[in-house]
């Protein structure tokens, strides 16, 4: 009993923070119906700012115009509690800016679009945090902790620190304040009315814009408090860690259907206490065996709860069967996408070059010459006298191409939003390491083993995914990715090395290995996209109901799609392990998944052109700059630009870069819509045919 009691303070306090995060999310969702995956990013930004000014910092502002020079170097150094109002003011301002300039333009879009947009926003905030406050770990010293870490009192012989008791107190205060707000203020009542029926509420004079501002400012301040408390509790943290912890708040919120404060808070506490119990009883007894058990058990419970589809979870949600973003992204008939899709590009190119008449001879030279030169360059590239730092980025770019390809299959074609592809990269790497080091299999076998291992894992996540769509699927895959990350990646450390046979173990040789396998995977994906299987993917994406009415089995098709995309990611993971010489925890995390999902959407997630653009733009280019510039100065500018680009592209054209020309064309022809007249014409034609047949 004492042993059990001793776990309670720790569990209660993390649970309290999850509950606080969950309540903030519910506040925003209730008023605006927007799932805020950027919540962790907001919490992180405020927390890092807070400890930055608490630790003391000199800011530099330089102004340099023709004759005017100005330098301003204010030093801000506040005590913890003096900094709190400043940080909360920043949180409020952040909430307002995000609502006004990022969220409002998307307010009426589908849940899937909002999920991708807020994931991208979270990434943007996280990258900005690292750029502004440094990429080093944030360590909260005893002096700067939110409350003293000395024991305040003891329960059953277990000491409870002021810090822990204080955080629980803050959460309780926030819960009471929220309750009073909804119970006694007119704005609270308006939000409740709006949550029940937004249209009726706005007809009755409730301003949805005002509610949105109020809830985003309030929610952002809750995020700020949670971030500051969380950073203090975990002592040492980095932006990614804080964001990931915040996803557990999201998991708790979704168990409450994103509308119920009590259930969300309860789920937050349950996750916190469950984790602590698993940590104490399982990890405490055998740390290497039960690695990741707290996350696997608690997040597994969240996935199972979602898949059981209890009524309360789905009651408050808007239901759009239409997958929004994705069905528009899917069409691959744009000229630019064709130009980038290697196969289509070659066809278009052949069609464009004249082979008859005066230019015939020249045409033939161009027709076979240009693709020939490109192909030759790809083939002999490692042997050219280029600077040595070129080969490594090219290898990475090809591996990234595979990862984006796996997103294209599952998100773009099958229409199932998955944030778990990184987990398959980890599974592929783990498979290679196990086959090579534990089973001592010779070279090509570990790679095959890694891909085979991904199949049962795909089915494992595919089964709950069959019962979920949109937002819920995104959360379930996020939870799965998080659990897999914690359970798989820490098991492989620097001593667990894998290497190719000596003859293949140079960057140049690896380049050919990766090139061949990537080309093979792209070829298979292309064959699938043009076949019955590919069309059944698109059918499920566009409308599951209609697909079913024509004999397409959603269960089988979805599992096929999950297995194919999982296998592609696992192949990427296996190749990555060989490239890096082992499993690296930087690749395969949820953060890695979200980053590449963002890149995939920016590049175009509907066609094979997307992976090529993404590999060049977000793979080759940053890796090249990393290699060219000295590696010590870490810049997050590429990440910031990519995430900002995502928001802009989603605003003007959800099809991504690969469908840009299609977007421009459709804008141009928006006014000459003669479709209705044509129906008349074709109906009349059909009727004429019918008469003819009857005669």
């Amino acid at each position, binding site marked *: 009993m004492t042993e059990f009691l001793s776990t309670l303070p720790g569990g209660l306090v993390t649970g309290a923070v999850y509950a606080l995060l969950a309540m903030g999310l519910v506040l925003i969702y209730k008023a605006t119906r927007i799932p805020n995956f950027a919540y962790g990013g907001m919490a992180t930004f405020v927390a890092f700012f807070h400890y930055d000014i608490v630790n003391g910092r000199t800011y530099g502002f330089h102004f340099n115009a023709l004759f005017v020079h100005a330098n301003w170097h204010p030093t801000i150094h506040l005590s913890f509690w003096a900094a709190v109002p400043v940080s909360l003011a920043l949180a409020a301002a952040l909430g307002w800016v995000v609502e006004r300039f990022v969220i409002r333009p998307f307010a009426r879009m589908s849940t899937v679009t909002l999920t991708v947009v807020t994931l991208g926003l979270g990434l943007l905030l996280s990258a900005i945090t690292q750029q502004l406050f440094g990429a080093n770990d944030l360590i909260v010293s005893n002096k700067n902790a939110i409350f003293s870490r000395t024991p305040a009192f003891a329960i059953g012989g277990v000491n409870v620190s002021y810090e822990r008791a204080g955080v629980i107190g803050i959460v309780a205060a926030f819960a009471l304040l929220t309750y009073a707000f909804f119970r006694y203020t007119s704005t609270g009542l308006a939000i409740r009315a709006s949550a029940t029926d937004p249209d009726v509420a706005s007809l009755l004079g409730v301003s949805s814009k005002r509610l949105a501002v109020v809830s985003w400012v309030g929610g952002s301040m809750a995020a700020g408090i949670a971030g500051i408390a969380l950073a203090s509790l975990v002592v040492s943290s980095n932006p990614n860690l804080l964001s990931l912890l915040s996803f557990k708040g999201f998991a708790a919120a979704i168990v409450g259907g994103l509308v119920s404060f009590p259930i969300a808070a309860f789920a937050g506490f349950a996750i916190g206490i469950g984790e602590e119990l698993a940590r104490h009883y399982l990890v405490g007894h055998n740390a290497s065996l039960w690695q990741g058990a707290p996350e696997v058990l608690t997040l597994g419970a969240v996935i199972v709860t979602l898949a059981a589809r209890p009524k309360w979870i789905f009651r408050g949600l808007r239901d759009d069967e239409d997958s929004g973003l994705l069905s528009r992204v899917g069409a691959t008939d744009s000229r630019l996408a064709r130009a980038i899709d290697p196969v289509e590009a070659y066809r278009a190119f052949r069609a464009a070059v004249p082979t008859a008449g005066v230019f015939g001879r020249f045409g033939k030279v161009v027709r076979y010459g240009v693709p020939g030169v490109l192909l030759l360059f790809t083939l002999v590239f490692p042997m050219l006298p280029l600077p040595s730092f070129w080969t490594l980025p090219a290898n990475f770019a090809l591996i990234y191409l595979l990862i984006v390809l796996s997103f294209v299959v599952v998100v773009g074609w099958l229409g199932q939003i998955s944030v778990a592809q990184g987990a398959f990269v980890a599974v592929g790497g783990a498979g290679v390491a196990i086959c090579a080091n534990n089973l001592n299999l010779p070279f090509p076998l570990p790679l095959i083993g890694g891909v085979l291992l991904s199949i049962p894992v795909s089915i494992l996540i595919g089964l709950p995914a069959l019962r979920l769509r949109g937002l819920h699927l995104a959360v379930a895959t996020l939870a799965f990715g998080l659990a897999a990350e914690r359970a798989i990646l820490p098991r492989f450390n620097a001593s667990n090395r894998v290497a190719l046979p000596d003859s293949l173990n140079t960057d140049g040789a690896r380049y050919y290995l990766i090139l061949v396998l990537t080309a093979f995977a792209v070829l298979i994906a292309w064959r699938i996209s043009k076949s019955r299987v590919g069309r059944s993917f698109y059918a499920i994406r566009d409308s599951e109901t209609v697909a079913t009415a024509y004999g397409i089995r959603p269960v089988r098709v979805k599992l096929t799609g999950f297995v194919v995309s999982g296998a592609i990611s696992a192949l990427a993971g296996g190749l990555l392990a060989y490239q890096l010489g082992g499993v690296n925890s930087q690749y395969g995390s949820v953060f890695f998944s979200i980053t590449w999902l963002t890149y995939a959407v920016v590049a175009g997630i509907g066609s094979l052109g997307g992976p090529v653009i993404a590999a060049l733009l977000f793979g080759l280019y940053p890796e090249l700059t990393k290699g060219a510039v000295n590696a010590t100065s870490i810049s997050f500018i590429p990440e910031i630009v990519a995430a900002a680009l995502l928001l802009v592209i989603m605003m003007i054209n959800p099809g991504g870069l690969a469908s840009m020309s299609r977007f421009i064309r459709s804008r141009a022809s928006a006014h000459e819509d003669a479709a209705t007249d044509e129906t008349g014409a*074709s109906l009349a034609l059909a009727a004429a045919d019918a008469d003819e047949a009857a005669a």
Partner: protein
Amino acid sequence: MTDVALSIQDVQLAFGGVRALDGVTYDVPAGQIVGIIGPNGAGKTTLFDTISGFRKPDRGSIILSTPNGPVDLVREQPWRRTALGVGRTFQNARLFRSLSLRDILRTVQHDSMKHSGLLRSVLGTRGARADEAMVSRNADEALELVGLARHADKPAQELSTGMLRLCELAAVISVKPKLLLLDEPSSGIAQAETEALAPLLRRVAEHLGATMLLIEHDMPMIMNLSDTIVAMAAGKVVTYGAPADVRNHPEVLTSYLGQSV
């Protein structure tokens, strides 16, 4: 006694306290065009949903006559319908909106591609190529039949509702059903063009040799087109029979058409 294509026996379905279907019993005669009429909320679309398997009735059975003997549709999975020869269209012309019309028509023939599993499709075996050629041929034929051949490469989302209706028709034609369920085929089509729709539907039924069940609000059209009319109200079959008889049935007049007709 004519053959029965579909026998609906005492089908009941309640949503909470509302009885959407309250003991619907009706035998659909084979080879006929049967029109279902009734005010909003009469249970027409719900009946279609139970026949096509999207809703399971609380009670009752729906027996389909197939070449291999009778099958109770209530016990079958929704995706089995195509193989059993049941095709349906939807109230608001739902289709795969990002695909081109030709791809939609290839997609709906999913079930008839027996040699095109994942592996065989990827390898491009002879069987898979033959399947692919067959569905492309059928798709072009079906588009020709409804007069959409010249729009074959346009994505569905660029077309008007009327054209989507025609494409939907082409889609059900291409899977060659023996029982065809059409949910308001004339909605979204301009009044003048519905006159052209009726002969087209009759031609489709004859072309397929199929039994056709259709829900329709356009009275002149459905009375003109149907061999038999079934009138529904509040989840029950009020009456059925030849169009002229149903039109003058006193209960139909009061519950649906109003006294003025």
